[in-house]
């Protein structure tokens, strides 16, 4: 499979941190996502399963990452993701792109309700169950392009 030129990042590859948050072991989707991101030309820092929120932020700081993609499949994402944006801001990552995706809360709820909970927490995008990798790649391309057009938000 050839990388899709429309989804190709700029010449310096952007760095994306991926992982499954909290006490969650569902690694398969996250691993496939990470493989697809690499294939699309991104530099991927894959933290794997069972990753506490502060480890995402630490890895993002250390690698000067452009985005963090958080997976949660086991229903406790609501508890695990609270304060994630604040952790990023404390670490000086004010403008970092934050996506979250998976089966995010316990039970079957309308997606707009779930999405609102996570957007209110400061995530830029929330991916519904069954979301395809291609859509995430499109989102990243759009959001990175928008950021290049707009001046970066400055810290403090």
């Amino acid at each position, binding site marked *: *499979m050839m990388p899709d030129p429309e989804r190709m990042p700029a010449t310096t590859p952007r760095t994306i941190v991926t992982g499954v948050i909290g*006490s969650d072991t569902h690694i398969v989707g996250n691993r496939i996502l990470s*493989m697809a991101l690499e294939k699309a030309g991104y530099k991927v820092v894959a933290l794997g399963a*069972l990753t506490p929120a502060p480890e995402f932020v630490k890895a993002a700081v250390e690698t000067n990452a452009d985005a963090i993609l958080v997976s949660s499949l*086991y229903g406790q994402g609501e*508890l695990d993701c609270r304060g994630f944006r604040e952790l990023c801001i404390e670490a000086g990552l004010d403008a970092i792109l934050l996506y979250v995706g998976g089966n995010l809360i*316990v039970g*079957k709820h309308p997606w707009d309700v779930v999405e609102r909970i996570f957007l209110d927490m400061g995530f830029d995008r929330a991916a519904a169950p069954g979301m395809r990798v291609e859509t995430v790649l499109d989102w990243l391309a759009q959001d990175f392009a928008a950021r290049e057009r707009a001046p970066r938000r400055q810290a403090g």
Partner: protein
Amino acid sequence: MTSPPTVETRLPLSEARIPDDAFARMRRANLARWPTGAEVDFDAAVARHQAMPLHKRLGWVMREAAAQGRCLTQPRGGFGTFALQKELMQVLDKEGLADIVPTTTDSYTRNEQFQLAQKGIEESERMGRSLLNGYPIVNYGVAKAAELIDSIDKPAIMLTGTSMPKLTGEIAFAGGYSGYLGSGIAYTASYTKDLSIEDGIRNYQYLDRLAAMYQAHGVELHRRQPGFLTGTNIPPCVAIITGVLDMLLAVAQGVRNYGLEMGETLHLVQDAAAVRACRELCEEYLAKRGHVDVFTSVTLLHWMGAWPQDDAQAAALVAYGGTLAAVAGANSVTTKSTHEAFGIPTPKANADGLRTTRMAIYLARGVRLDSMPDFHAEVDLIKREVRPVVDKVLEMGDGDVALGSVRAAAAGVLDVPWSPSRWMRSAVMPARDAEGCLRILDPGRMPIPREVLEVHEEKLRRRAERERVDYGPDLAVASVYEMSESLGTIFTDRWAERPAG
């Protein structure tokens, strides 16, 4: 590759039964880790089990199901507060007609983060809905566990997806739970990242030794192995290899009632063959090692991979899952519901899944595949995959299952696909073939004979050609999401268009 000892008195790793005095010391230290540990009174627990009617004791129920050729139903289920959990168990018992009632623990409890679980309980109670994905049994303690058992008229099993079962197991058994799902190799490979296989084995040696202690006092508990592993296209041979090894570890501690679980491949013949091969291979290895008094059962699980979001498609997986288990002659089936694609089901949806499955089992009750040559060929193929690997693991441990398993995992001889654990190589890669069976695309370093792998490759190449997918990792990835795709994608109602003229 072994981790540093956590206590000075730690015994060297082996399959040997933990001696009485060492076990007593381990129990004291374990029970002191959280306040509810002090509620565990072994003699009272034994009396409690003995006072329960036989039909609430899973050890007896599994033996009886096997003797009568029944396929029992059992869902999963756990909520974050006692009130919600009690209601759930009653709904599953009364409305779902579950033969076995579960209690799934939340993921904080699974990782022994009892402080976090406590916070989850408080928030769940405050918000009136469960923020935890299961029941924090350790935080609630023995008396509450006993109250749950008293509220149902079925045997109860703990489903804990953990490599750290020691406190959960103590509390649950003391409360009257008579089954516990979990094992050292399978769960460590599937539910942890950093815990070594050795530590996982040690933790389950404790639980098995505890179950054996109940056995010695006249209470036969049912221990069970989660051979479904990572739930992602696990071919039968991979499940059975870990199953046989975990079983031998449990039996070495004194367990006498042990169940093997496998996720359904969704191919009727392969699933039936898997159940037959699993049963016979367990008996074969038990006999080889001189165990004559061990009861084993086999359970199939509804599809463990990604589910379709469409209710109708999901309903087919639920019903067919019952059919597969019944035709395969499984002793029980673990059910899911049409909510599976979205996460944890409501009690009602869960109960519906149970009854759908139950009806399917009833419809298939008289059907067996024994007259079918393909069935016997598949049983034979699975055995030719399992024996070389299990034998190599035992050889690597100089006959000791615990040592062999740790060394074999480090070497990749024992391997599990899609594992989150850094202690597994996860080089073995499965994919679905043209006929719908799960095959091995890449064995990694598992010593599966070449002539067996050639069978797999031939079947997988046929699919790759038909679907014009590269023969390689793309085929494996395509197989991961296949069952969750919409019908329009996997089985269209459109005819291929012919060129005009």
